[in-house]
């Protein structure tokens, strides 16, 4: 078991954003986390990666308790993520975005960096090579020298994924990877995500778009911060509670 979340609770003032949430992710899986707007999906990501501390509950990653750990430490342990808003560094080029994200592996010490030692130069050339490889994987090689802020929306989303891959995560948390994409971009993204899984990355996806279901091994549906369903993607579409959460009570 790669990730285990138990009894996770987060309150913002009087509002309970996430309530007694349990889930687990196994090695090599793609797990979908879906739910209507404001259900608490992004909050769960922020709790896993240490952006906020939870009020209650525990997050265990790879056998290690990472509850309340700082975001950069969580990243260091092998959880990469994308962000729904601000997915990239706008003033860097596409290539710089990816190579800047190679902070952890290989890591150069401050001394190596400042004095431009052979170790640092070797690391930087590895980083450049690996960055280009990732850009090929997500189909952004042609625009590698463009400023990230000038990319079309779909490319920006893919660059967000490329950046997260650069941290060489054991677990990749994708936050609405298909949001605002057109059908051809969606198809391309779904293919890329499948390719990442084949390369051995475990993936968790937060999404509104139901097309993501085809890719998932398991789906968890949340509404108002609570898990209302967990099961196979084929069954989700027929589940009454899920339909009622999405479309309102009268459909149930």
């Amino acid at each position, binding site marked *: 078991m790669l990730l285990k979340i138990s009894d996770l609770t987060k309150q913002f003032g009087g509002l309970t954003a996430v309530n007694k949430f349990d889930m687990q992710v196994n090695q090599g899986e793609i797990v979908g986390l879906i739910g209507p707007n404001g259900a608490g999906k992004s909050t769960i990501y922020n709790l896993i990666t240490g952006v906020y501390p939870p009020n209650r509950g525990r997050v265990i990653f790879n056998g290690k308790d990472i509850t309340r750990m700082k975001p*950069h430490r969580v990243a260091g342990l092998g959880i990469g*993520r994308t962000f729904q808003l601000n*997915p990239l*560094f706008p003033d*860097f080029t596409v290539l710089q975005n990816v190579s800047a*994200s190679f902070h952890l592996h290989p890591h*150069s010490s401050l001394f190596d960096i400042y004095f431009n030692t052979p170790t640092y130069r070797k690391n930087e050339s590895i980083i450049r090579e690996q960055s280009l490889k990732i850009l090929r994987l997500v189909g952004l090689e042609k625009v590698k020298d463009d400023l990230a802020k000038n990319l079309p929306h779909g490319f920006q989303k893919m660059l967000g994924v490329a950046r997260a891959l*650069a*941290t060489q995560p054991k677990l990749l948390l994708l936050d609405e990877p298909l949001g605002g994409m057109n059908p051809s971009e969606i198809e391309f993204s779904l293919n890329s995500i499948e390719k990442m899984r084949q390369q051995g990355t475990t993936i968790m996806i937060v999404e509104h778009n139901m097309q993501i279901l085809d890719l998932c091994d398991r789906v968890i549906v949340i509404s108002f911060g609570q898990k209302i369903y967990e099961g196979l993607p084929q069954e989700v579409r027929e589940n009454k509670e899920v339909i009622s959460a999405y479309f309102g009570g009268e459909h149930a």
Partner: protein
Amino acid sequence: MKRDGINKWIKPVALVGLIIILAILPLLFSSPYLLHVLILTFIYTVGAVSFRTITISGQFPLAHAAFMGIGAYTAAMASRYLSWPPWVTIPMGAIAAGIIGIVFGYPFARLRTLYYAMGSLFFGMAITYIVQSLKITGGYVGLTKIQPLFSSVSRVPYYYFFLVLALFCTVALYRFEFSRIGTNLKAIAQSYQLASSVGIDEARYRILVVAVGCFFVGLVGAAFAHYTPIVTPSTFDLSATLWLAMYVLIGGINSFAGPIIGTPILYFIPQYYFSNLRAYSPFIPAVILIIIAYLMPKGLAGLIFMLNSRYLDRLWFRMNGKGATHATENQ
């Protein structure tokens, strides 16, 4: 293709030319006042360059001149009370400024943007008040009887000393910015959430850049203490910091060359040519800043690079007699 060749060479050639001119200047002009103003220009240039280095992490350090003061007072006190030689007190001043930068960086690492600016502003003011009220620092009057760096009365050795020191600091800060450390700092400035999600320790880097900026400004501050006959608190007060900020903003905050262009224009020219207009001096940068904000949003550095590439295009056109593509359009 060749056109790119010219552009690639223009910066190093201009730089070497500038250094040669500065190196032979005392041989051509021996006016002590000119050399004095140039020495101060070198000091403030390092102040402005190190100020800008801190801003690449997205922080606006409004205590910067106070750190120059920490360097200066550390060196001055060690020299006056302990009679330590300048080659000990100058590094000591730099290290003291760097360490206080780290101590001050810790609680302030959580403050971002405007909050950091205001926090550092009051920190700098507090340092000024402390220095003014303590006996050991000489209060309002300041400290005198600091051992001078050179025994000669001539300003020429000082001139060369500060020229080399300024070059050393500038090169060191250039290497800092254009390494992966600088990239990480720029990443933090663009999005700290994203930067920490790839494993960059935001707090550590923000403290590091403050420490480095303070170290170099402390270094020139400490050297300044062994040049000037008296070290006073007002030299390092809030208005001194705001002047540094002005040099950076007018020169161009997004370019390493910005403060190196801005400081001579805003400090040297008014000080040397218009010193009788000093009473009006705060108005000058305000007016220039407004003009720059309207006409050249990238500051003077941006303007110079733009003119330079336009002029080179025309030159290339004349030499070849055929249309050259406009290099600036591709940027």
